[in-house]
């Protein structure tokens, strides 16, 4: 069997895409992708099960549910990974993350189950040598993985307290590849999957996801537009 590529989606990325009405482009991306788009059960709770009961976000939840029902996004069992395996790894990750950073002598609890479950699935796939990236728009998990020293500085600056972190523990998170909805709309645009031609389409797409929570700076947007 050919090993497929996997994109693991955190709630934050699907929320940016959803709130910008970009699911048609998302479906087109899936159609050209040689692999699967996966969400964990924990993420499903955040973007379908919980908001489906909140009037303000019921429609968004239904749209995401439809993606799941139609197989555009799938659950880990579709790639032979059981929920209990993810739960176990998620708890392990929660323990490591939430005991890695300390301020005022107390542990700083940084992330929650959905985000941790994305990292857990990424770890499991890495161990199986399955090529994967994690799509996550929120900032903290990305900083934790790619630049924990920046996260420490940010926490110190904002909390006005000395923060320490256990470098050896945090190394556990260094082998993830992370993208955001910004990179997804970039690739959709470059591959001609966005049905707009007039105007500054790439700029509009990048700012649209930024304004719905994708953690990307104006400088990064400028750089992407130059590529």
């Amino acid at each position: 069997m050919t090993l497929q590529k996997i994109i693991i989606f955190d709630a934050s990325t699907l929320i940016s895409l959803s709130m910008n009405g970009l699911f048609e482009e998302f479906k087109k991306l899936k159609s050209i992708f040689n692999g699967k788009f996966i969400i964990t059960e924990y993420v499903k709770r955040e973007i379908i099960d919980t908001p489906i009961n909140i009037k303000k976000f019921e429609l968004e939840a239904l749209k995401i549910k439809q993606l799941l029902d139609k197989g555009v996004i799938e659950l880990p069992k579709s790639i032979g990974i059981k929920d209990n395996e993810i739960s176990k790894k998620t708890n392990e990750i929660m323990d490591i993350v939430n005991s890695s950073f300390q301020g005022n002598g107390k542990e700083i609890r940084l992330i929650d189950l959905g985000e941790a479950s994305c990292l857990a699935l990424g770890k499991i796939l890495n161990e199986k040598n399955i090529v994967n990236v994690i799509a996550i728009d929120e900032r903290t998990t990305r900083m934790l993985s790619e630049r924990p020293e920046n996260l420490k500085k940010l926490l110190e600056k904002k909390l006005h307290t000395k923060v320490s972190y256990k470098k050896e523990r945090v190394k556990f998170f260094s082998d993830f590849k992370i993208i955001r909805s910004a990179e997804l709309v970039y690739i959709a645009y470059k591959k001609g999957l966005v049905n707009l031609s007039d105007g500054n389409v790439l700029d509009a797409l990048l700012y649209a996801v930024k304004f719905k929570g994708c953690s990307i700076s104006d400088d990064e947007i400028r750089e992407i537009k130059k590529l």
Partner: protein
Amino acid sequence: MQEKENILRILKETKEAIKQGDIVKIKNLSNQTNNTASRTQDPDNITVAVIVYSIGKILERDKYREYPEWNRFYKNILFFINEIINSLEENRDEKLKKNLGYIRKEINNLSGKLKKYIQDVFRKASINKASKIYEHGISMEKTAKLLGISMFELASYAGQTEISDVPLGKTLDTKKRIKLVIDIFS
């Protein structure tokens, strides 16, 4: 409650600022609650943060004072803040929680437009405080859960702020990240 002394000071100063109608001071005190709430993630600390912010917003809007229920509401808010201060000074956690809850109840006891307006202020205060905690480095999901709001609300609100423009937030070269997406789609 964690970091009790700090919260006690903030509440005492808030009480005086309410009496003097010093909205700038209340906003300043509200900002001070962000650090404690982010550090401790203690539900009572977070509730205090939301209450202080909401009071600042409520007092800012003169038109609320025109409603017949305003005087009672204002008097009761001051009363419950005083009760919260007493609970903290007496180290009575259960009484503290009850009094924090009474402030919410006080809003539910209102009726008509004033009730709707003030409920809206408290709802927006929760989203604002969530955004502040996210800004402090706590994840989006964690923060949404702490404040009892939806991630959709937080993402949308945080997206309008300058959180993503903080230089420390850039964690990988732009070209390298674009290469990741190109590679996975190749």
